[in-house]
């Protein structure tokens, strides 16, 4: 039995939230559920007959995904990439934030400058650095006789990986720096003054007061660097295109290629879900432990 009040409420709901609910359900939820379903079928892009009802194949797509050595390699490479990006980004960003909150001349100008790369799309940043690695670095290498820069970093697998890490760190440092700056600014000054009166040195204050009070900032920055670098695609595409010899094909690009280049939708989607679950687990564990480490004043 539908009461008139419920009909009125439903009308209000549709007026206020109908369109966003529909968009959200049809763009996020429906594809997500359909994507899970896809991974249990033998669907691929070439097939045209019986488009929405392919054969049920159980877990075989997941088995195929996990036993695909290219996928495992890409995954491992991504872990390595995420690890180095996270460590270097946060170290450098923390250092910059520390200096740029110490009241030196022009600190606002520097903050704005370091932040700039975050406003520009990964595709463009990747191309800018492609030029730097291919043209500017070799030129410096020959002029100043630095063997490290003789050849383009993008030409050998080992160096191409580090090129990718370098550019990512360069991009994210400004963003994370801003979050650390907000953290530094929120540390109560009287606490630091009291410590100075008690005879604490600079190092002592950093380790005993500043770092513990900065844990909330670390929670955010580590979460953001983890999530973003696991999912990186644009920069990867523009800078290395996964090359040379697929050596820098990170997992997002691997999934993309599997689905849209080799037209294997079902396996591609299984890989995408494995990626999603891995990242969700890692970030949840990280946030749990970071929150635990936070202290109250």
């Amino acid at each position, binding site marked *: 039995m539908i009461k008139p009040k419920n009909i009125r409420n439903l009308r209000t709901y549709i007026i*206020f939230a109908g369109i966003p609910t529909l968009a959200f359900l049809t763009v996020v939820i429906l594809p997500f559920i359909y994507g899970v379903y896809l991974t249990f079928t033998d669907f691929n892009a070439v097939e045209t007959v019986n488009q929405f009802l392919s054969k049920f194949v159980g877990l075989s797509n997941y088995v195929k995904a996990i036993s695909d050595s290219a996928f495992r390699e890409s995954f491992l490479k991504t872990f390595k990439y995420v690890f180095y990006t996270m460590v270097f980004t946060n170290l450098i960003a923390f250092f910059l934030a520390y200096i740029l909150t110490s009241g030196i001349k022009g600190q606002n100008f520097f903050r704005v*400058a370091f932040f700039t790369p975050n406003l520009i799309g990964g595709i463009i940043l990747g191309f800018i650095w492609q030029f730097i690695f291919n043209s500017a670095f070799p*030129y410096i290498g020959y002029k100043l006789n630095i063997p490290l820069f003789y050849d383009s970093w993008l030409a050998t697998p080992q160096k191409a990986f580090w090129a990718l890490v370098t550019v990512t760190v360069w991009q994210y440092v400004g963003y994370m720096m801003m*979050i650390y700056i907000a953290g530094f600014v929120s540390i109560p000054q009287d606490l630091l003054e009291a410590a100075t009166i008690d005879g604490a040195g600079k190092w002592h204050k950093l380790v005993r007061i500043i770092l513990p009070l900065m844990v909330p900032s670390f929670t955010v920055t580590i979460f953001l660097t983890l999530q973003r670098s696991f999912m990186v695609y644009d920069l990867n*595409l523009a800078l290395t295109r996964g090359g040379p010899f697929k050596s820098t094909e990170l997992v997002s690009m691997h999934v993309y290629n599997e689905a849209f280049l080799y037209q294997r939708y079902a396996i591609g989607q299984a890989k995408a879900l494995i*990626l999603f679950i891995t990242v969700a687990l890692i970030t949840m564990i990280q946030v749990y432990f970071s929150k635990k480490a936070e202290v109250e004043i």
Partner: protein
Amino acid sequence: MNIVQKLTNFLKFAAILTIAIFYMSPFLMVIVNSFKQTSEIILNPFKLPESFSFANYISAAIKMKYWNAFLNTLIITSFSITLIVIFSSMAAYIFVRKNWSINKIVFSMMIASMIIPFQSIMIPLVKIYGSLNLLNNKWTLIYMYLGFGTSFAVFMYHGFIKGIPYELEEAALVDGASEFQTFWKIVFPLLKPVTYTIVILDSLWIWNDFLLPSLVLISAEKRTLQLSTFYFYGTYNTDYGLAMAALMLAIIPIIIIYLLLQKYIIAGIMKGAIK
């Protein structure tokens, strides 16, 4: 301030200035070389241009159909954001003010969905909208941005509306205003700070997005700036002068906005990040 302190401050300044120059040097390289001929660049990428000419810019703008791509990006970004702001604020309002179970269900679904990365939806998304023949259409793309952007915007508005005292609206409702009028006349103006944050974050996201438009927009004349830069660079990446000018053309609109609104942009991004 004693002499030692002055000296350390100067050293700090010098150090950070050096770092900043190195940090910004990729941009400087692009600017300098965008005015040069390719042969000049190959000879020495660090030298200033011999003659100052916009020839590369003009040629790149024509070849990458710059105005077309710029307008496409502007239309897609502004329509998407307008829709996200209007509908998400309204939805968040009803979610806060009405204690209905459908509100709770949809709101918690939205919050939970925020951990789903785009990459784990893109394959079925392309498949569904492709089979409905809705791809290669900028209105589909705008609709998708509404779908992807609404969760975060609802989340932000929801947090803010919770803090607004209900008495204000009650008075309006007693005076005979409808809920719709009350929202637009009284509540929405109060949401300005959140609206700014959402507009800034979503502008950067949609303006710079590559993966979603690359899947949705197929024909060349529909391309956004990111897409046309990508295809242009793929074709002309050996013609350095031209390629650098194209990159500059893609960067300039954002840099102009950044210089004008940097305070708001940084504040907006910080608010978004800390949530």
